[in-house]
């Protein structure tokens, strides 16, 4: 479990009871959905726009790295070792004589793809676990909750190192698949707990009882009524998890159990350049800056979305 998720969990624990105070009622002139209300709030939030612009740039970088005027990231020549900036290589060259700017730009793709798919995997697992534990309750809930406890009992990075190592022991494999599966299979616990508690809160609402009386089966009840009304907090946790996953991918790659071979990754760049910081700092600094900005963008996005969905914290 990561520190950022802990913030959400801790802040959520003190302030996520929905409390329609008198101020909230008088402020609304016409009924709006929670999502609509949150969107109006988001549009006014400067942090949200800063994060959104950053994310847009990063996604562009991942989709079409060519438009940023970078050279070939795999064109390396030892004769250029630690050479200063020249031509399109704005950040100079690293120990292997590769273009640092090009590698930094091309590194965005792996980070964002892995972050996205790992979060998606975690989201699906968390949805299934949280929904079935919360909706069916009883022994199934006890069983699933104990299983979540066990996974939470594993220190996150330790488990990730062991699992990633196991999934991709071949040094020639790029490791992209292994890292995605590792992060996806280990990161879902917080989201599942959040989903479970909001499902429990919404399954006892009158509209669920009404739908049940009208003859709706469990599948329809869950998909049409319970999930849409308990998904807000879940999405916030997933947005923050996206940032955490990108950071963890870099950490695993840094430790040598993440991306490998000729895969381009900020974590590998940081690892490979750190022995030579005394002679050349740029190959260490630039991927660090981009990695930090990416994680920051997703965490700010999650923060802004949480504030919008959780009026009590304002």
């Amino acid at each position, binding site marked *: 479990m990561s520190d950022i998720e802990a*913030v959400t969990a801790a802040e959520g624990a003190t302030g996520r009871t929905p409390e329609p105070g008198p101020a909230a009622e008088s402020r609304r002139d016409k009924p709006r959905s929670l999502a609509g209300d949150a969107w109006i709030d988001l549009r006014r939030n400067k942090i949200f726009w800063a994060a959104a612009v950053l994310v847009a740039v990063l996604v562009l970088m991942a989709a079409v790295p060519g438009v940023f005027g970078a050279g070939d990231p795999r064109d390396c020549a030892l004769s250029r070792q630690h050479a200063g900036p020249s031509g399109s290589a704005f950040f100079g060259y690293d120990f292997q004589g590769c273009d640092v700017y090009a590698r930094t730009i091309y590194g965005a793709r792996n980070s964002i793809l892995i972050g996205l798919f790992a979060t998606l995997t975690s989201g699906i697992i968390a949805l299934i676990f949280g929904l079935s534990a919360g909706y069916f309750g009883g022994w199934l809930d006890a069983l699933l909750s104990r299983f979540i406890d066990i996974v939470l009992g594993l220190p996150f990075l330790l488990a990730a190192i062991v699992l990633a190592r196991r999934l991709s022991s071949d040094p020639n494999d790029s490791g992209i698949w292994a890292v995605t599966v590792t992060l996806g299979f280990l990161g879902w616990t917080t989201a599942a707990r959040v989903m479970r508690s909001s499902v429990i809160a919404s399954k006892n609402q009158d509209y669920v009882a009404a739908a049940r009386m009208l003859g709706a089966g469990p599948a329809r009840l869950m998909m049409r009524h319970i999930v849409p009304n308990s998904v807000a907090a879940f999405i916030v946790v997933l947005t923050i998890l996206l940032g955490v996953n990108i950071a963890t991918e870099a950490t695993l790659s840094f430790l040598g159990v993440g991306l490998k071979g000729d895969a381009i990754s900020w974590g590998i760049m940081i690892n490979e350049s750190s022995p030579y910081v005394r002679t050349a700092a740029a190959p260490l600094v630039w991927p660090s800056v981009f990695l930090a900005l990416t994680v920051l963008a997703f965490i700010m996005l999650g923060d802004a979305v949480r504030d919008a969905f959780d009026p009590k914290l304002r």
Partner: protein
Amino acid sequence: MFRYIVRRLLQMVLTFFGATFIVYALMFANQTDPIQALAGERPITDSQRQVLTERYHLDEPFIKQYWYYMKALLTGDFGTSLTNRKIADMLEQAWPVTLRLAILAIVIASTVAILAGVISGIRRGGAFDNVTLLVTLVMLALPIVVLAPLAQLVFGIQLGWFPPTAGGDASLYELLLPALVLGSLVVATELRVTRSSVAENLRADYVRTARAKGLTGKRVIGVHVLRNSLIPVITLIGVDIGNLMSGAIVTEGVFNIPGVGFNLFRGINTEDGPLVVGFVSVLVIVFLVVNLIVDLLYAALDPRIRYE
């Protein structure tokens, strides 16, 4: 309370076996040929193969192997690593420096977090509050792989304020930079929780009562608010231990500290299964025990919480 402790202990036992089983299975299940991996490139004779198979119970079903391992572990025998060193000895050598590092990190982080958190909680929305919110946001976004090498570069090499690496018997001063890096992993969370719980408690009725009694602001904040606000912060320490463990692997690697994380990292890279499982099992026990203590402490600190 007694029943709660018993239930919590039973839960802990279950979690312990589940977690160690997962790690054990990940490390050892469906290995292609562990004996060849042990021997490396060298050829291995049939009789050697037979001895090793018997010693490590390789011909028995997986679940039985786990059972043998746990039996040994619970009787204090952590086994030997593939380099033929006793894992218990390695742990004994590694943990003192890791413990010092972790304690230093926790002390620094909680001092900063509580001081700054209380101030920004009192002046919510003020300049100090906004600055700390921004700073904690940046700290939350800085992964340890960015922070540790950059701190080493800037403070250890370029400015030269701290020694860039620390050895096994490092002094407190040598450990200060790694501890700052490690502490910054948890300081942002602790600060934010302190801030929001101080802000919440300031609005509570008992604070109004204390003010109405004519108590000074210092006493209201220092005794009434602080005591109640620190409860959620203390529970965070349980979560933080897990974060510190993860952070220690990178931090000890970067700063060359031969502690638990450093050994563990080396064990993973040399595919030293027994070492990894041994170290991880111990860390899982530490993690679970700390969380148990924190939970019980929570009950002791806040009499409103009743466990049945």
